[in-house]
């Protein structure tokens, strides 16, 4: 290998590079990986039972392989992934923390995983108690008055929150027109506002990266339904004037929505409910440790103040006079449903298991997360440009200004080189208000040793970027595939395997 060699890499193991084709290519008629118990009722004549609807030939193209081939195939594929279980995953805003295995165990228990959402409430008291306890815990953590556990993800939580606001304002006589969103917000915020029927007005941050409160005062009119704020912001900075921001909105009859993506900085320390927030969502797959699983499932409960409670999605968990729990769908003011059934129950189980393991000690997790972020900030200050110098909470955002100036290496190059050092990249190019952002969120799950290795790796890459920028620009060098052409992939996607070999999409 030319250029700075990889001998400085202290942590990484070589990325597995064994070949593995598509499962469809291993198929051969007659192989089986699954057998059913024999049929114990008379064999139906499918052709006469289904008539013209009968699929006589089965699903064409479906694989025919044996059990060992299935196990090997997916095990090999798994080795091509990076994962929290392999090392630090400093993706800012994503809160990639340890996913406790006991959570997986309890979510799969017979009596938990086996339960049907339409079974009678009297046979679901266990499930309902789980939901009730999780509701209580999340209300205690957020300082809010009421909560719905139905939304399947953070973005669906955002939508639920805005629909609650909309229904509330409609009840006041006018749903209003606009939702204000800071330029540092998550991309889902503006998309959500539009789907809830609102126009989006962006607010520019002031020079320290905080909401410009004076400007906000001018922007908040009777047309504004809500402000969607992320606190701490995506810069990892606490919005110091949030109580004042809430007052400005409330004075004009507008509400304050908080994107709870960064609750890992506040849990046990401060409560959005005390800060004047009217409604917020939580990402259970971030703060409450449910596994990301390569992109879901998540869960996005929405906590709210009393004024929004009548509009909660149905069904609503209620406690009856005899102490039994029940699901109540008779709520005339409800916004309806955002997802079928009772939400991602299995995810909710895992989140409760996480909370029970910590109890009030969850504050220590928050403290360690903030400690790690500040330790990394201290370690890399001066090596990388820090565009906003206000104190960091759970994450720190650098920029690639220094590296770009001395050799043209950008945040994406540095991120890709980090892969060679055995780390997952940080979040690149976000938040949008920082050109060339390096957004780093270590979470509480990293030891001092892992943080030190990360700092060393980042320093080493900074040196490489100065000495041999081309080498960094072509990273990663140790993975089984090198940097991919994402633009062409998005423009000319091949979305499936085709038996003929030549995909139609490729043409």
């Amino acid at each position, binding site marked *: 290998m030319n250029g700075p060699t990889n001998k400085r890499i202290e942590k990484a193991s070589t990325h597995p590079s064994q070949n593995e084709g598509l499962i469809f290519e291993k198929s051969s008629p007659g192989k089986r990986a699954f057998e059913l118990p024999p049929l114990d009722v008379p064999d139906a004549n499918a052709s006469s039972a289904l008539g013209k609807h009968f699929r006589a030939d089965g699903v064409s193209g479906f694989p025919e392989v044996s059990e060992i081939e299935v196990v090997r195939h997916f095990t090999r594929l798994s080795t091509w992934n990076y994962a929290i*279980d392999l090392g630090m995953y400093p993706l800012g805003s994503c809160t990639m923390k340890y996913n406790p295995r006991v959570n997986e165990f309890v979510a799969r228990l017979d009596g938990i995983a086996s339960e049907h959402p339409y079974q009678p409430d009297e046979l679901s008291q266990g499930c309902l108690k789980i939901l009730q306890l999780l509701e209580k815990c999340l209300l205690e953590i957020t300082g809010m008055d009421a909560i719905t556990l139905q939304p399947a993800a953070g973005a669906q939580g955002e939508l639920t929150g805005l629909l609650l606001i909309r229904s509330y304002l409609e009840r006041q006589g006018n749903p209003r027109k606009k939702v204000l969103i800071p330029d540092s917000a998550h991309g889902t915020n503006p998309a959500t506002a539009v789907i809830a029927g609102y126009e989006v007005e962006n607010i520019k941050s002031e020079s320290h990266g905080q909401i410009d409160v004076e400007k906000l005062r001018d922007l908040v009119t009777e047309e504004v339904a809500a402000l969607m704020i992320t606190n701490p912001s995506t810069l990892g900075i606490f919005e110091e004037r949030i109580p004042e921001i809430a007052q400005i909105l409330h004075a004009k009859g507008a509400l304050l929505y908080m994107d709870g993506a960064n609750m890992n900085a506040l849990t046990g320390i401060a409560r959005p409910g005390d800060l004047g927030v009217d409604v917020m969502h939580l990402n259970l797959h971030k703060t409450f440790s449910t596994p990301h699983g390569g992109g*879901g499932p998540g869960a996005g409960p929405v906590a709210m103040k009393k004024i929004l409670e009548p509009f909660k999605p149905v069904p609503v968990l209620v406690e009856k006079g005899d102490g039994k729990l029940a699901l109540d769908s008779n709520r005339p003011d409800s916004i309806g449903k955002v997802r079928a059934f009772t939400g*991602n129950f299995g995810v909710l189980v895992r989140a409760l298991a996480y909370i029970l393991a910590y109890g009030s000690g969850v504050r220590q997790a928050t403290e360690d997360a903030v400690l790690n972020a500040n330790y990394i900030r201290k370690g890399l200050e001066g090596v990388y440009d820090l565009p906003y110098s206000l104190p960091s909470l759970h994450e720190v955002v650098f920029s690639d200004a220094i590296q770009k100036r001395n050799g043209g290496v950008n945040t994406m190059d540095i991120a890709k080189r980090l892969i060679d050092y055995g780390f997952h990249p940080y979040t690149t190019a976000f938040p949008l208000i920082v050109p060339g952002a390096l957004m780093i969120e270590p979470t509480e799950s990293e030891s001092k040793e892992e943080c030190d290795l990360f700092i060393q790796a980042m320093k080493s890459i900074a040196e490489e970027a100065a000495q041999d920028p081309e080498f960094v620009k072509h990273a990663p060098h140790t993975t089984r595939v090198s940097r991919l052409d994402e633009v062409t992939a998005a423009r000319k996607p091949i979305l499936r395997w085709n038996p003929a070999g030549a995909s139609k999409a490729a043409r």
Partner: protein
Amino acid sequence: MRYLPKSPAERREMLSAIGANSIDELFECIPERYRLREALKLPGPFSEAEVIDYFKKRASENSVGYTSFLGAGVYNHLRSVITDTILLRGEFLTSYTPYQAEITQGTLQAIFEFQTLMCQLTGQEVANASMYDGSTATTEAALMAERLTGRRRVLVAKSLHPEYRDVLKSYAKHSGLLVEEIPYAASGMVDSKSLHAALKDDVAAVIVQSPNFFGVIEDVAEDADAVHAAGALLVVAVTEGVSLGALKPPVEADIVAMEGQSFGLAPSYGGPFVGVLASREKFVRQQHIRREKATSNICTNQALCALAATVHLTLLGKEGLREMAHQNLSKARFALSELEKIPGVKRKFDSPFFNEFTIDLPRSARIVNAELLKEKIVGPLSLGSLYPELTKTALVCVTETTSRAEIEQFAGALRRALEKPL
């Protein structure tokens, strides 16, 4: 705390490296009067054994020991231990959304295989990487049809899952989409007369489910001609994916929205499941790069559930799925024949079905179910609360997991329940 990898000495060392005297200093950016002085009132901390004990107690308060005849969008099917073995590999379980393609090729290839399997099942040209569930996939299909046609009315069969209709209405309410329901005919299928009458040139999509909420297989091919003649798109929703092992795929549909729970995912009291969106290739396009111009606010998919479906369907393979579907077909027919022997029990709709069917009872299905519960049977879904005209109708689901003995016990218990004086 066992999840936190730091000793007190290491914490002190790190604080001193930062130049802070105490951890509280790092939180001084939060105005003091908003900082909590007291510990949160949360149960715990619990050891691993205590956590397990808590959930085992809750599990024992649920339906363990009961036999269920519920389906209605959530199905009990055999699942191989292999699926969970793969899912629990940390490389899949604890990986993020595959934004860094170089180190997520495993997840990406699995999704590619998922998309291929979904195309093969549904007969569509392309499929996406998954949605939250069947209800949200159906909603996205409607929104997609609105954009593709530039029209705002959506006709929805009343035999589409009631909760799917509810979710669609929540999303449609503020995006200017008009949702109109089309009644079902005496056959249990969508009423083609009403459908034809409503099919004007402002209709973006017609949404039917097959097998529909009553278990009845819709005549998708016939619906498609009328829908296309009006310039609208046909969306076919599928809640029971296993049916596609025995049923012709809805190739005439423009968009298929499917719930994939039947493919290796536990009922889990309603989720997490996996939605599938499959369609014609010409509808594929890139999401708008401007955030407020985005057409969906969905950020991630249900990758791990999609992986479960991929592993499960790979295990089943062509023959396994065919056999599973065939067993469902056979058992449901056996159950119907046993139930029809009971005086007063009649099949509601005389149309082809897969593993669910509706029966009319001589008295309220809700009251009958209360009797069945006493014999440890979770009876078929009473339709009265969802369809006020169907208080005496129940939706029976029988899958390959229901044994002949259980079906016979159910028939016996139902007979006894109906013999009881009111």
